[in-house]
């Protein structure tokens, strides 16, 4: 088991380095650079060449790409990801202040979607093919295909503009700093309702349909028939035999979903003015803020790799065959 974990860990480190090189090369080879960003901002004014040279020198843009990458690696080794070309603040600080916001939003959406979606999926699996199940499948498909910007605007119109039930935008009210601890928590939760709702409905559909599909698959297997034949009750069959075996694909789904917890949703963050990582990512790419793009890549890569590592280890626990296969 330990050998297995160490081997997986080594793969993860290599993959991580590969990702940083690939991202670095990619972002630098996309046409346009921080200089074009400043040129665009200057309009009809001609920027003096010395000023452009100063910007290039400050961010090593005047050096060959491999040297630039070495500068970056040297910093990154000590968790210094440089400063943003846009606002000159440390990239680490910029990301760390937005990460909790994104995590809060996505974790709530994820948890609600999973807690509602998986039981619904199990329920559907037991009713596979019946009218109620068919109707719910159509319903979930519709839900999944609703564009989130449209749902967000609808929620806003109804719950905020027409009836002043939830705040329209932002993460906190104007008087947030004057509130007590309970007041702060309540205020934050009120601000979370609409964005979380917007993020939940599609994920809920995914969880419900996916867990239904895997469970239906398992129920068709011979060992379930065998369990039934030996006289086990429906609940025992579903819980003890079927659900456990459906766990592996579910772990895969969780492994895929977890990185989304920190990657942020551009649309929801933009519409609700939620100060998260998603908007930071897209804006950094659009303005060619190389250090911030690299910093965000590192965070996303680490979380993705960790998630898949944990998923792999969980497989090994859930399915002894995987462990044995590695040892052999």
């Amino acid at each position, binding site marked *: 088991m330990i050998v297995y974990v160490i081997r997986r860990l080594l793969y993860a480190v290599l993959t991580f380095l590969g990702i940083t090189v690939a991202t670095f090369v990619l972002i630098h080879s996309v*046409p346009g650079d921080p200089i*074009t960003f*400043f040129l665009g901002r200057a309009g009809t*004014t001609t920027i003096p060449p010395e000023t452009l040279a100063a910007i290039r020198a400050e961010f090593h843009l005047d050096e060959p790409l491999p040297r630039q990458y070495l500068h970056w690696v040297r910093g990154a080794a000590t968790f210094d990801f440089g400063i943003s070309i846009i606002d000159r603040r440390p990239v680490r600080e910029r990301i760390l202040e937005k990460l909790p916001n994104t995590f809060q939003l996505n974790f709530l959406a994820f948890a609600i979607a999973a807690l509602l979606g998986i039981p619904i999926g199990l329920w559907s699996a037991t009713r596979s093919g019946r009218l109620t199940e068919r109707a719910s499948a159509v319903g979930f498909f519709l839900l999944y295909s609703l564009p989130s910007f449209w749902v967000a605007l609808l929620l806003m119109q109804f719950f905020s503009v027409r009836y002043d039930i939830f705040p329209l*935008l932002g993460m906190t009210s104007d008087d947030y700093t004057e509130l007590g601890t309970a007041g702060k928590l309540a205020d934050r939760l009120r601000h979370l309702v609409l964005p979380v709702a917007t993020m939940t409905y599609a994920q809920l559909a995914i969880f419900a349909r996916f867990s239904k599909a895997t469970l239906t698959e398992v129920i068709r297997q011979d060992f379930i028939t065998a369990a039934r034949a030996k006289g086990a009750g429906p609940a025992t069959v579903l819980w003890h035999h079927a659900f456990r075996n459906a766990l592996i694909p579910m772990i895969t789904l969780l492994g895929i979903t977890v990185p989304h917890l920190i990657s942020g949703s551009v649309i929801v963050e*933009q519409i609700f003015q939620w100060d998260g990582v998603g908007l930071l990512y897209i804006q950094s790419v659009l303005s060619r803020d190389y250090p911030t793009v690299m910093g965000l890549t590192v965070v996303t890569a680490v979380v993705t790799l960790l998630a898949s590592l944990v998923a792999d280890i969980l497989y090994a626990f859930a399915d002894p065959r995987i462990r044995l296969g590695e040892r052999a």
Partner: protein
Amino acid sequence: MLLLCIACGGGEKPAAPAVKAAAVPDDDRPRDGGTLNRRLDLDVATLNPIPSNSRHERYVTQLIFTPLIHIDRDLRPAPGLATSWEVSDDGLLYTFELNPKATFSDGKPVTARDVLFTLDRILDPASEAVQTAGSFVHLDRSRTRAVGDHTVEIAFRQANPTQLIKFNDVQVLPQHVYSKGNFRRDYNDTALGSGPYRLVRFVRGKEVVVERRQDYWEQKPYIQTVVFKIVQDHGTAFNALRRGDLDETIITSDTWIRESRNPESTKTIHFERFYTLNYNYIGWNNRHPLLRDKRVRRALSMSIPLDAIVNDLYHGTARAMSGPFTPDEWAYNPNVPVIRHDPEGAKKLFAEAGFVDKDGNGILEKDGRPFKVDLIVMQGSVSARQVAQMAQQELRKTGVDLNVVLMDGQAAIDRIMAGNFDAAYLSWELDPDPDPFNVFHSSQVPGVGQNFVYYNNPEADRLLVEARRELDRDKRRDLYWRLHEVMAEDQPYTWLIQVSLKWGVNKRVRGVVASRGFGYFLWSPGERDWWIAPGK
């Protein structure tokens, strides 16, 4: 000495609100106090006015700092920190008299040394003053000096008639604060200036709050607190305006056209639109083998129906352009006609220039080469794409295959600024005092200036050079009127339209006036004359 302006403090502005209020009932008289909720459509990168390079940041710094001179409602220089100024006859020496009452918000007086310090910061490449450094490249630092505490002489190696207005970008910094540490990195989150407001709080991603200074040295604004809320999404911002979370916001054309007719919205929102110094155009690469002939470029322009763009796409909230100046500018020659949509005339001109459709596929050819041109359009703007598509359809009818290429902004700028393109749909934001030298002189090709279409006409070159040396406004006007004619004839661009900016303001806010070319903000007094009516 040529006396450009001696303004006596108060001659022009402070009396205005009282006059306005004279004939109206009591509760319509300007009142002190209240909070104004303004919108910023992007997060603030820096509150330091020197490296700042975007308009939304200037909205904030305009209230915290004072420029050497302001710009008034007609875009003329007006007193700022300087109460009066003189320009030498040769246009090389500017002498500013600073307001002796002026203080920074920490109580220290504003002196000539602070002005010199600010100029030095603008000139220092390390400050990255991308928007202002270019206006001061000819400054002669060795002859620039402080004469006593409140007089400053600023010398140039080259005279430039637009120089005076550029002092509007010199938002004077207190040397005793900004001279410590790293200028570019250490002053992005703080701000201390001599403006009517002082910074209370800046929460990144959320808001900037400023508060009126009790000790302000000039006529105080009416509004006590201004909260700039960062709201990136236009749809959300409009909803916030309807709810009263915001008091003002720019509005997209679609929303404006729909909502300004909706009684539910007009009950609480004042809708207004105005033209600024912005215009949209298609730049043709004048070196391109297919586009080299000015008859061809004229025929291209004749193929594009500006009327339909204005009326069908913008519902009349835009207007057609005829050349490099906008109709509100004095440089605009009203005798130059807008090119009319004339497909038949265009076909004749194409034929004259040697383009015929020999193979009968509907696309013209010359020397065996089909008339196929890529038009770069920046991603993100729906209306830009619609305009480009309309141009594409209409040009197809006159035998031109215009291929619309959507590109990410930086990638587009990368291609365009290198002169590596056929055609591009773009817009310019002009300066309040015109000097299109950088954009159209044949020396200002990529790498030097912004003439990325490689426009080259000796007469235009001569006019551009003469006009930027001519200090007499009437003579400059004659030169630019002629330039307007010459360029309209050459059509290095197809000048398309000016789209009016659309705004919504909560009706509780009063005293709202737009300037000729700048809209509501960035001119004086502008929002300093706004006030908030008592709630019902």
